């Protein structure tokens, strides 16, 4: 490869690499939200405590992949619902590595899809939350119409009504479906139900 060609290649690739790294690596959550929390067997009880902190509110759990465009669309559709309605709810956005391209925790672009301060964002590299939902879901009346890959649930929205607590097992949700963007009208209806 000639020097000129190499120069052109570097001239194109270097700015792209810097821009890409900026959006991938600087993964700060939007203002008003706690920092992105890692979920492992040690910190799972922290998520459980956070879930039980406001039992008077509805709780929404989202299972998302940071490199799945449909999941990103789903996150934006939830943001739109939160923007348009003053629902008393806490949203737990759990990002998990579902695709081979999910080799990094969610970066700025993914996290900023959910800007609302009612949202808490988590990175669950071991699919602990998805496993819990699958296990608990076997006895639930509501079942999702989709959303399983390699045995793990993903691109799924789950709504728990106010008053419910997560004790030994997850409580029965009032809404459970995906894809999130595809079922956003059902999700909005579940959240707006008096």
């Amino acid at each position, binding site marked *: 490869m000639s020097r000129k060609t190499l120069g052109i290649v570097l001239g194109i690739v270097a700015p792209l*690499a810097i821009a890409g790294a900026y959006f*991938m690596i600087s993964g700060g959550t939007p203002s008003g939200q706690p920092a992105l929390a890692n979920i492992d067997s040690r910190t799972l009880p922290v998520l459980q405590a956070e879930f039980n902190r406001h039992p008077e509110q509805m709780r929404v759990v989202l299972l998302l992949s940071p*490199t*799945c465009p*449909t999941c990103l669309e789903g996150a934006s559709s939830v943001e739109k619902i939160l923007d348009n309605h003053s629902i008393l709810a806490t949203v737990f956005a759990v990002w998990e590595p579902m695709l*081979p*391209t999910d080799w990094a925790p969610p970066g700025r672009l993914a996290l900023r899809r959910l800007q609302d301060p009612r949202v808490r964002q988590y990175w669950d590299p071991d699919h602990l939350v998805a496993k819990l939902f699958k296990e608990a879901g076997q006895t639930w009346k509501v079942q999702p119409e989709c959303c399983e890959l390699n045995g793990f649930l993903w691109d799924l929205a789950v709504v728990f009504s106010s008053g419910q607590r997560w004790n030994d097992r997850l409580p029965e949700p009032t809404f459970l479906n995906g894809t999130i963007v595809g079922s956003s009208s059902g999700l909005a209806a579940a959240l707006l139900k008096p």
Partner: protein
Amino acid sequence: MIRTERFASVSAVLSAIGALACCLPLGIPAALGLIGLSTVMPALQPWLLAISVVLLGVGFLTQFRRGRACRRHSRFSLVLLITATAIVFALVLFPQVIADLLARLA
């Protein structure tokens, strides 16, 4: 030879984009009539990414391998190959950026 170079570059880009087709927003596969395919694609993603890298390798080999006869390289093929490399590497190294762009296209 030039055909091989161009075929490898274009195929590499197509297979890399195909790797993300598993989870394209509903509007895009619908527009292409590929709704059913989107349910199969997640399992194919690692293979499609591997095929992209192999095809780029084929492209570079055919572009820069010295033949017996001295021959000029097509400038278009070179540009195509460099563009394909940039796209495939962006998909592999910065998948969240590409996923965000695809989601915005919906």
